[in-house]
């Protein structure tokens, strides 16, 4: 029993290393398809030159198994832990170990910086928080992990708005538009825009980040939200930011909105932008140690 448990722990660690490698080196198909579509629909020369460099770059990265971008991000894991999955409390240590290993083996850029002690060189923070892990306990026997490294450029232009409820849906739309306008060229457009509405100051930002995991082109099941997504998508592309902020072509590939209930006195809105290199991977390990690794989140 002990032996098979050790084996399973090793399988998890190895598959998370591979998940981190896949996320850093391979753009999910929905993202690469969307960028290729932009390229073929685009007629402006400036946008075409930029999109061509982007496409050539992610194809080379895939072929050479090298990170698409040198900013391999700060690592977050979205964990769904089946209640009958045998490894539980040790998972955090395993995810941390896998992050350290991937930093050397892929390699990833060391991006964990301690305020006082500087770069830790391992992508693991000194105070037990980085990589950040979102936990969810679910029925079943499996472990599912979404690996999501996110770069600093587009995170720096993400914003939280604690709006006055009176401004309503128009106020939310204005906040999203202002955020993207302010981001301009800074976060490597074309962007994918994640919007989280409701909850509190922390929940709406998490929701906005999670919204980025939805497939490009997939609309929210609620028709009212879907309509708002479409409306914002076409409006944001009229701002004139353009590919790489050079004024030509579309600066936004998609807008994904998620909502939750809010406090009567608050209207929190989180806008989390992703650069064109929206990276993630999916790892599933069954209790018998069978591994699924994919660029697609089922």
């Amino acid at each position, binding site marked *: 029993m002990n032996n098979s448990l050790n084996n399973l722990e090793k399988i998890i660690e190895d598959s998370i290393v591979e998940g981190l490698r896949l996320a850093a080196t391979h753009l999910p198909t929905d993202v690469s398809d969307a960028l290729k579509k932009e390229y073929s629909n685009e007629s402006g020369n400036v946008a075409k030159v930029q999109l061509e*460099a982007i496409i050539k770059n992610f194809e080379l990265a895939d072929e050479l198994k090298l990170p698409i971008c040198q900013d391999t991000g700060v690592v977050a894991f979205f964990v769904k832990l089946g209640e009958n999955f045998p490894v539980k409390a040790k998972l955090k240590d395993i995810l941390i170990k896998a992050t350290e290993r991937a930093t050397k083996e892929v390699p990833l850029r060391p991006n964990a910086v301690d305020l006082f002690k500087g770069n830790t060189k391992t992508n693991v923070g000194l105070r037990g928080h980085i990589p950040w892990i979102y936990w969810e306990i679910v029925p079943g026997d499996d472990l599912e992990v979404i690996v999501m490294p996110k770069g600093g450029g587009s995170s720096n232009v993400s914003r939280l708005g604690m709006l006055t409820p009176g401004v309503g849906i128009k106020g939310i739309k204005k906040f999203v538009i202002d955020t993207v*306008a302010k981001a301009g060229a800074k976060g490597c457009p074309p962007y994918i825009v994640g919007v989280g509405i409701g909850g509190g100051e922390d929940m709406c930002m998490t929701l906005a980040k999670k919204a980025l995991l939805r497939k490009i082109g997939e609309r929210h099941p609620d028709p009212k939200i879907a309509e708002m997504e479409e409306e914002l998508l076409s409006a944001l592309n009229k701002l004139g930011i353009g590919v790489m902020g050079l004024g030509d072509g579309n600066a936004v590939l998609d807008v994904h909105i998620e909502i939750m209930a809010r406090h009567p006195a608050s209207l929190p809105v989180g806008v989390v932008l992703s650069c064109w290199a929206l990276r993630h991977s999916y790892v599933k390990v069954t209790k018998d140690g069978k591994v699924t690794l994919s660029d697609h989140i089922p």
Partner: protein
Amino acid sequence: MGNDVVLKTPISEDEIRKLKAGDTIYVTGTMVTARDEAHKELLHMKNSGQEIPVDLNGLALYHCGPIIKKENDEWKVVAAGPTTSARMEMFEADFIKAFKVRVIIGKGGLGPKTTKACQEYGAVYAAFTGGAAIIAANAIRRVKNVYLLEKLGMPEALWVFEVERFGPLTVAIDTHGTNLFEIVSKEVEENISKVYKMVGIENE
């Protein structure tokens, strides 16, 4: 758009003053990386009368925090795309003045202080596709040297690269006072009320 130019380091002020915003350029020769910390550190050295570790006159400066690994005692560049230049706006004008770099490469643009310094001291800012880390790494022939690695860490250190046809780069700030990113940003400002209207927001 304008002409295709390959600039070889050391680049003269004359060559730089011939460039116009919108030109596509490539750089061959010596390029040095510097991000926030390196800018701060070098300016601090200069201001306190110390010699900086590498003479930047006529060279290309690259806003980049690369991934580099050591293989058989040699540095190997894995990925080296540009970082957001805007963070360096607070240092760049002083930097151009102090060290006479001729081409500054990054992404997302720099502001009015840099534009003025480019005009005054003869430098251009050239935009490279954000995230295009592998294309960049392929143009880097070798790592000639590295400074401040222990002190600043891998992304912030001063990496000295030998590059061949590094690009394509779009000249975004020239020596004539044109700043492409500022032009786009003004347009965005002008467009915003129209965009508000599209989603039903009036009178903003």
